């Protein structure tokens, strides 16, 4: 049984082409929250079979979950001949999650779930794979709310930038302004359904500052994380996520004050001159958890 309990928030999902054995091996060192083995665009038509076999072989061999890493597989779209075989491979590989590309309708999800159930049963799997949905078209974005609540397996949604832009007949703008509507829409869908929301990849892997600027921007919009195509981008995301020592100290003080107030049976309490209630405390507890993830002194 694959029992994987998330102990940290999803912040980065690392794309790994599923036909590259050395990257399966290396990706564990980069400590992404989720590795997304890609059977879709990264794998040539002639290599799809080999990539599936490799996926099954290596995922049964390397225990990513033991290193706190969630495994996800991006399958080929519904409109391809590879769709069903990919799903079967995900089940045999005992992945944690499937990423469905180019989702547009509820029926897409239903088809996916039906096949997942079929192969989970055939392979006597005693857990259910989760689903991450990628929207990459105008229709998908407009239907996102209905599609994203079509199955309780769905834990997150993502924007696929390239196909979406082509579908819009738009052009890429310097600060990706053309994505603003889709980004804000998906954040609303995600928040409404309590799902994780992930942003598009940032293609220029040598532009660290550009990546950080974009990540800070999408984080302000409400995104949880970003799909990444280079391991160094994981470090950049962590830099933004990592609390400062001052933030941690503030959170620890509030936690202490909160615990004191609980002992006294108070619902709200005064902290540094401000009245504080439970949601504010919860935000600070999240900071302490994040600080633990980054091994920050005082949080451990």
């Amino acid at each position, binding site marked *: 049984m694959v029992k994987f309990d998330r102990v940290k928030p999803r912040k980065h999902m690392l794309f790994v082409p599923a036909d590259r054995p050395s990257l399966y*091996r*290396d990706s*564990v*060192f*980069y400590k992404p929250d989720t590795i997304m083995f890609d059977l879709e665009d990264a794998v040539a038509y002639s290599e799809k079979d080999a990539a599936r076999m490799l996926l099954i072989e290596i995922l049964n061999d*390397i*225990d990513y979950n033991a290193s706190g890493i969630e495994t996800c597989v991006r399958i080929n779209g519904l409109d391809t001949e590879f769709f069903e075989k990919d799903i079967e491979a995900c089940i045999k590989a005992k992945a944690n999650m499937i990423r469905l590309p180019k989702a547009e309708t509820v029926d897409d999800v239903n088809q996916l779930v039906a096949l997942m159930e079929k192969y989970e049963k055939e392979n006597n799997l005693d857990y259910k794979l989760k689903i991450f949905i990628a929207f990459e078209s105008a229709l998908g974005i407009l239907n996102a709310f209905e599609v994203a609540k079509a199955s309780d397996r769905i834990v997150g949604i993502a924007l696929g930038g390239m196909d979406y832009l082509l579908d819009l007949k738009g052009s890429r703008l310097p600060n990706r302004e053309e994505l603003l509507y889709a980004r804000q829409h998906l954040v609303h869908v995600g928040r409404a359904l309590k799902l994780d929301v992930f942003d598009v990849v940032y293609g220029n*892997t*040598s532009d660290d500052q550009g990546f950080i600027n974009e990540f800070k921007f999408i984080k302000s919009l409400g995104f949880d994380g970003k799909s990444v195509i*280079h*391991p*160094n981008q994981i*470090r950049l995301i962590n830099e933004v996520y990592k609390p400062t020592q001052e933030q941690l100290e503030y959170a620890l003080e509030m936690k202490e004050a909160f615990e004191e107030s609980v002992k006294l049976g108070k619902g709200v309490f005064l902290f540094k001159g401000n009245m504080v209630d439970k949601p504010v405390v919860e935000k600070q507890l999240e900071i302490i958890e994040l600080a633990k993830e980054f*091994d*920050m*002194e005082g949080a*451990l």
Partner: protein
Amino acid sequence: MEKPILTKEYLEKNFKNTGTNLVPYQPKEVRTSTFSSNLKELPNKGIVRDKVVDLETAIKNSGLQNGMTISFHHHFRNGDKTVKVVMEVIKKLGIKDLTVASSSFTDAHNFLGQYIKDGYVKALQSSGCRDELGEFISAGNCETPLIIRSHGGRARAIESGDLKIDVAFMAASASDCMGNANGMMGKSRCGSLGYAMVDAQYAKTTIILTDNLVEYPNSVISIPQNHVDYVVEVDEIGDSKGIMSGAIRLTTNPKEEIIAENITKVIVNSSLFKNDFSIQMGSGGASLSAVKYLKKHMIEKGVVASYALGGITSHQVSMYKEGLVKRILDTQCFDLAAVESIYENNDHIEISASMYANPHNKSPFVNNLDFVILSALEVDINFNVNVMTGSDGVIRGASGGHSDTAEAAKISIVCLPLIRGRMSCVVDKVNTIITPGNTVDVIVTDFGIAVNPLRKDLLDEFSKAGVKLKSLQEMRDFAEGIVGKAKPIEWDYNRPVAIVEARDGSVLDIIYKRKG
């Protein structure tokens, strides 16, 4: 057959033809050697003479004969064009059975295999050996084992007389007619002549080869005329671009970035990270990447280093230019930015290999080092380090300043990826010990940091600072969980191909021919 244990009896029985006194390595003892000069006869008696001659005349006048020892320096690395020119004349003169004791061998010296086959060369002594020549030696094609010495160990051997150089051939990018020479000026610059300085001083005969004869007296003197017998003008001594080849590169390899961050964690959480600390950075990708993280911390905390030591790259030069390092002490320039800098900046100081790391002089610079960052091919769970033989057992590396700085620096940090190819780099036993585990303080990989249990002070310091540590056993087990356990190499223990000396001259390990 088990690998033989290095006892005095074993060495005496099996290595009679090396021409040097072999003593096994003892971690708690220091091998002493007696200083001696090889300059038994003063060649000149103060008379001014014309030193500029052609190469053939210089070699004839040096008295070079069958069975003698000649030396070279390797500052041009892959761009070297001097060794070949000299060896061709030696071949023409029919001088055979020579020992070639270069400070290192690079890809440019692959042709020496043929000279060994033809009998012109009978033995090699060096810090490093790579590529086709490494394979040639590893295959047991040279009757006399290669002697591998660290840079400091080589200087020690020359000064003590363990390595007696009959004729030193030293390439210089600028020399005057009397042999006042440097590597900083002219078309074929290589920067520091740190290794050459020792050879020139102690060889019986020193011949400078230059492609740039300058007006007397030369304005920068790395090798002085009082150490030089002859000056030979040649077309080209080497290609400056060749010095940047091999291990020296800066990368954004994600594994190396993680290693670099871990290296920085070790340094900045040490109490030695304060104003006027000193550091040597290796030439590997991870240690170079560590520079950018280290700079950030130095700027944030207002810390300035007193000196950067060793092989120098543009990264140390940039730290110097930014005021983060007060001085650079340079035995070898690893890129053209360093070559420019050593000529232009007074605080970028050329030092000899003996000043750098000879363990038996009155105090080498390594002894004042706070931190050294070193690369490795593999390490074992006892902290022993191999930088010489690959996973296939073939000689393809260099001892360099590895064991010198590991022993002398207050904190020696050895970095490497946990997995390379399909092999774990943390193993039960390294194939070849180049740097003994008792001198290595910290191992850094992309999977974590391990501190040598011998360094209880560091364990305490890092634990108080909240630096998470792992054991080497944990690292090995994790890597083997992914790539499995490698099948051990089968060696032919009846056919030694190289002797590894510790920096004090004792024998640390033997490299054997592979079976099959």
